[in-house]
């Protein structure tokens, strides 16, 4: 009598596989960065005054968290196997419109809502174009809107800057809630929400499905177009959030802010273990990566490393991150070949 067979998608749990996950590598990298930084500069972590130093490190998150808000929905986009490079320009346009409308007499809270609305609108437009004209690649569409959005910002404000926001607006980028900067708290809450959405909801599951095989997902009844519009709208909204924090930190804004943010954000997401070919990656990885890159830059800054060297180091780290899965596969193949030979 043939034995009954069961087919299951669940793999048996293995400690080895658990610790070989990219997120653990990242955590090791994060700790290495901390160790290296505290050795390189006595100002990074002073062991004589641990409490004081810890506060300073928490404080330092304010220097890099503004763009991190975009990294969360960018992970969604990249998990779907797509990309959005218009985010930096969206930040600039939202910030400029907020500044201009406030200067024209719109009360600050309304101007802030406008900022978020403009960001959301920019994202929505990307989503609508991409779903209406399916043959267009996201890279090309968002490249065009990247130029258009910043172009509009430049038309509105030309080469000038707007500022003179009410003093309470500085709260966003400079003040604390208890011991934590407001920005850090806001980021952690957002990261938590995005993590839950990605890993615990149907919506999140559908993102992975689209990233693994868009056509198959479509024929399995996944509302691909609706989800894509939703994700692009979401990244627009978060670009608006970044615009709020960035403007609060600068106290004024102009059309050339947030240049190159798209690349910084994509770098954070990719280092976080999200595969650019789609269908892979987790929110915790993105969160760890945000802090790893941020503290690396901050630590090198404390050593007064020059701007060029800093860029090279961050670039090397990124190449390393992208190469690791390939290297791992090469190593596995090599091992398998050797076994076969024996």
């Amino acid at each position, binding site marked *: 009598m043939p034995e009954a067979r069961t087919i299951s998608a669940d793999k048996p749990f293995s400690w080895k596989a658990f610790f070989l996950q990219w997120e653990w590598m990242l955590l090791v990298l994060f700790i290495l960065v901390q160790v290296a930084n505290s050795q390189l500069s006595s100002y990074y972590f002073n062991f004589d005054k641990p409490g004081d130093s810890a506060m300073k490190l928490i404080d330092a998150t304010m220097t890099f968290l503004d763009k991190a808000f975009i990294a969360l929905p960018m992970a969604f986009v990249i998990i779907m196997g797509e990309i959005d490079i218009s985010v930096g320009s969206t930040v600039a346009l939202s910030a400029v419109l907020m500044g201009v409308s406030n200067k024209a007499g719109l009360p600050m809270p309304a101007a802030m809502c406008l900022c978020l609305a403009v960001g959301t609108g920019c994202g929505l437009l990307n989503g609508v174009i991409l779903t209406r004209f399916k043959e267009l690649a996201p890279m090309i569409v968002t490249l065009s809107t990247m130029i258009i959005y910043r172009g509009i910002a430049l038309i509105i404000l030309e*080469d000038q800057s707007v500022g003179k926001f009410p003093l309470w607006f500085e709260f966003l980028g400079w003040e604390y809630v208890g011991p934590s900067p407001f920005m850090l708290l806001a980021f952690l809450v957002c990261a938590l929400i995005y993590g839950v959405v990605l890993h615990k909801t149907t919506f999140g599951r559908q993102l992975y499905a689209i990233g693994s095989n868009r056509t198959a997902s479509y024929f399995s009844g996944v509302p691909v177009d609706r989800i894509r519009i939703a994700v692009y709208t979401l990244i627009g909204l978060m670009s608006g959030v970044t615009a709020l924090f960035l403007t609060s930190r600068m106290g004024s804004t102009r059309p050339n802010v947030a240049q190159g943010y798209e690349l910084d954000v994509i770098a954070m997401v990719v280092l976080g273990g999200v595969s650019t070919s789609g269908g892979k990656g987790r929110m915790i990885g993105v969160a760890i990566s945000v802090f790893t890159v941020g503290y690396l830059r901050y630590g090198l800054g404390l050593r007064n490393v020059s701007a*060029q060297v*800093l860029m090279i180091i961050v670039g090397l780290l990124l190449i390393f991150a992208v190469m690791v899965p390939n290297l791992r596969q090469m190593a596995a193949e090599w091992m398998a070949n050797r076994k076969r030979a024996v």
Partner: protein
Amino acid sequence: MVKRMTALAAVLLVCCLMVATAGEKKRYAFIFKSTGNPFGEKLMEGFKTAIEESGAEAILRAPDLPTAEAQIMIIEELIAQNVDGIGLAANDPDALQPVLRKAMRQEIPIVTADSATNPESRLVHINQADPELIGRVQIQAAYDMAGGKGDIAILSATSQATNQNTWIEWMKKELELPKYKDMKLVKVAYGDDLRDKSTSETEALLKTFPDLKVIIAPTTVGIAAAGKVLTDKNLKGKVFLTGLGLPSEMADYIKNGVCPWMYLWNPIDLGYLAGYALVGASDGIMTGTIGEYINAGKLSAKTVVSAGDGGTEIMLGAPFKFDPENIDQWKDVY
């Protein structure tokens, strides 16, 4: 795997420990607008000399892009290092206010040089020369070069640069005089102190305004880029160039006639004065009030005067004219 990791970590640690930690000397930092600017390098050289004369250590920083965001990040890093004072050439007069307020709350004195922040964000500004004079003298030069009539264009740095904007205001005021009724300012272009952008902006000016007689570039990066374009296009005698340039970079264009003469002050002295002002501020001798005298090393003592923006400043001196007669003496100096 684990073994390899530990080995790697150990190697890293050893490398780190070899880098000695800083001593007990006082430390002063200067932040320029962006990297790769020869004027900025000379300025920081002077700053370093002054700081070292006072027995302290100088930290020289500049962001890779001339933006306020990047300067904010650097200032945060310097605050975390508890430096004893920060000097800077600001990329935006207002955008640095929140972070500079944070620095001043921690009793780090702020002195600006070359390009000022708003008065609330600084103790004192080191001004290269009277901005009115700098502005007016460049229009007078354009008048003499063009023979009293024709179109003028200005090639500036970034549109937020406080110093350039003040000079341009004075240029416009000078142009209102009846003497200049046949001269017209057709455009203010911004090369952002980037070589390639300044070059393409110059080319755009020449294309858009074929009757252009004079280009005024009140920035060292812009004037050098424009000098190269005019020389390459063989426009000597047709379009004249003047403004503020480094003698070492402009010597060729002054001698070949593209730029009959130009102005500048000594950036090394400017940085040097900023260094002494910062040390004085940190020692509590200089508080930035009008009428104070500060010791400025090899320069004579300088006075704090009121500035046009409502704050206070220290004046370095008058702009200096460079022409074919004297350029050879100066081109090797800076």
